[in-house]
């Protein structure tokens, strides 16, 4: 694995981040930096803080940052609302995409896409132009246009929900995408569809963070860096072979690492 040029400014920098929910500390000093074109994987047991980290970057209101900072394209995003972060190019692919009855998926995608386009000073799309765009993107995740007329994620299978997340990523063209266990609950075919979608969407300008438990997603999308998280910290960073090591030895050694601390 060749490491990519470091001369670019990082898209995302998380510096010594401490965060808690209802006074319960979850993150205990996380540092990570993602450059354009890089793919990072974060692995670790359930409850180690992976999902929390992703939600905090997206601006979830339940968490308090007690120390440290998050910079996106060089600016501290602490005071930005979740929608401002999204408009400026931060994308979170949800582990459990939320169902919203009554709100049509098509309308949702259009409003979201236009919010991002407005930020980019691009013309907002009317219903017809948007339909053309969305049909093109549907192919990336092999979704049927029937999905568009349904309520957001309502009655979608696990795999359909995850593909809907990738469709959103394709439409929003984020600068950084944090994909939280996008592989969980997918059979092997669905996993391939999702993985190939992600690869097609990303380019040299995009940074990607894949949060996962399993090697199988990383077989499809080769990460530049693998971070292992335990107890709210990144305890080890390596290249893609670290994931293989983890696969081989399991998470027990991370537990031992915590004990030693």
């Amino acid at each position: 694995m060749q490491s990519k040029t470091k001369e670019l400014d990082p898209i995302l920098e998380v510096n010594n981040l401490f965060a808690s929910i209802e006074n319960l500390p979850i993150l205990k000093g996380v540092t990570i930096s993602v450059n354009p074109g890089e793919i990072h994987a974060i692995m670790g047991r359930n409850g180690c803080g992976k999902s929390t980290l992703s939600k905090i970057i997206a601006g979830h209101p339940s968490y308090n940052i007690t120390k440290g900072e998050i910079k996106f394209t060089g600016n501290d995003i602490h005071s930005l609302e979740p929608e401002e972060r999204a408009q400026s190019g931060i994308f979170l692919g949800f582990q459990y995409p939320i169902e919203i009855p009554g709100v049509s998926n098509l309308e949702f995608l259009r409003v979201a896409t236009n919010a991002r386009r407005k930020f980019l000073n691009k013309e907002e799309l009317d219903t017809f132009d948007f339909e053309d765009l969305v049909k093109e993107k549907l192919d990336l995740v092999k979704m049927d246009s029937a999905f568009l007329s349904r309520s957001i994620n309502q009655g979608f299978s696990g795999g359909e929900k995850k593909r809907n997340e990738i469709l959103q990523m394709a439409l929003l063209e984020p600068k950084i995408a944090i994909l939280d266990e996008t592989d969980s609950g997918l059979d092997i075919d669905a996993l391939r569809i999702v993985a190939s979608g992600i690869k097609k969407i990303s380019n040299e300008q995009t940074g990607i963070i894949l949060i996962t438990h399993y090697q199988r997603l990383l077989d499809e999308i080769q990460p530049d860096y693998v971070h292992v998280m335990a107890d709210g910290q990144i305890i080890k960073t390596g290249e893609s072979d670290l994931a293989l090591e983890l696969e081989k030895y399991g998470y027990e050694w991370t537990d031992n690492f915590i004990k030693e601390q």
Partner: protein
Amino acid sequence: MVSENLVKDVVSEPYKYGFVTDIETEKISKGLNEDTIRLISEKKEEPQYLLNFRLNAFRKWQKMEEPNWADLGYKKIDYQDIIYYSAPKQKEKISSLDEVDPKLLETFDKLGIPLTEQKKLTNVAVDAVFDSVSIATTFRKELAEHGVIFCSISEAVKDHSNLIEKYLGSVVPANDNYFAALNSAVFSDGSFVYIPKGVKCPMDLSSYFRINSGDSGQFERTLIIAEESSSVSYLEGCTAPMFDTNTLHAAVVELIALDDASIKYSTVQNWYAGNEEGVGGIFNFVTKRGKCLGKRSKISWSQVETGSAITWKYPSCILLGEESVGEFYSVALTNNLQQADTGTKMIHIGPRTKSTIVSKGISAGNSINSYRGLVKMGSKASGSRNYSQCDSMLIGDQAAANTFPYIQSQQPNSEIEHEASTCRISEDQLFYLQSRGIEFEEAVSMMVSGFCRDVFNQLPMEFAAEADKLLALKLEGSVG
């Protein structure tokens, strides 16, 4: 968690219809007795039978008690402290719109209901009611060509007395309930619609009710008759200025559908709701009922209730004719200290009658929003069916929602199906939409209108868009 202020403010948009029109009015003095009623009847030059109808209602009302079974709390109404007749002064006989006081036309203009020939809405005929009287009715000539009568009820009393005598009080009898009895005694104006046999009304008909005076009550009365195989879609809108006192509005609406006739009655109610502390606002006590007299007749109510300090309203259907159909689609939104107790009654009398109830209640702030509905299957209603769905949505943690379904069946061969749900706009749903770049308030209003979709789909087109906007406005700031 969604920060507390976040959930507090999405529901409070300043009320934009709160202005008062400065116009000379003719008012009678406060108070209610038989002389008041004689005076109203005299001013309107009514025939004897109508005066008798009023006096009879008044005597019954005096013996009745104000109902207290609804889940509503409010200061006792002093019925002697109300003006029962208030009308803008104008020429005795108005032969054309040019003679209407420009201030009145301007008022309706400001409300988005232009009445003048040049500006009037192109596809809707409007009857504009200001305090106690009807100001103008548009498109009368065009409608008359189809035999459709659309005028104020006062005019109908003069020009179509036989119909009034036959049908007034035939659906809501004078002694039906306390507020209906009061209305029957003192009603001042309202709209009258008659659709002759076989006629599909060529355009939507609409009444716009405007309360202007602070100390007078509004007691309008609407009567719609659809003869065999006719159909009509009727819309009703209401607004009032902001006063810090409460104004009483007690209306009666009666609908009659004969064989194969259909009436669709839609309301967007946006009376002034009072301020955030619950001061002022309209007390809205309304009796609306339709009688499906004919075979295969159909009456459909749709309502979007967003205003009033107190709403007490149960648009109902009496399904007499065999295979007749009743529908009730309702969205009721309450905020701040508003209270709404609203629902419907579906009384199945004829065989193979069908009714559908879809009620969506949204409560925000410290408001209370109750659905109260009765489905009754009479002994002859064999093969009849009802489907009810009552959903409540809570915004914030101070609002309350109740559902009171009453079911009575004397007919084993009938079906009643009731579904109810309560949900809260969850923080996760909001975060999901926001994390896609959708502004907080837009996210809330998307979810609210998604929640109301089944009902909005039943509204006439322009009305649906209007209702969507209205809800968004009312919700602005309540979840903020």
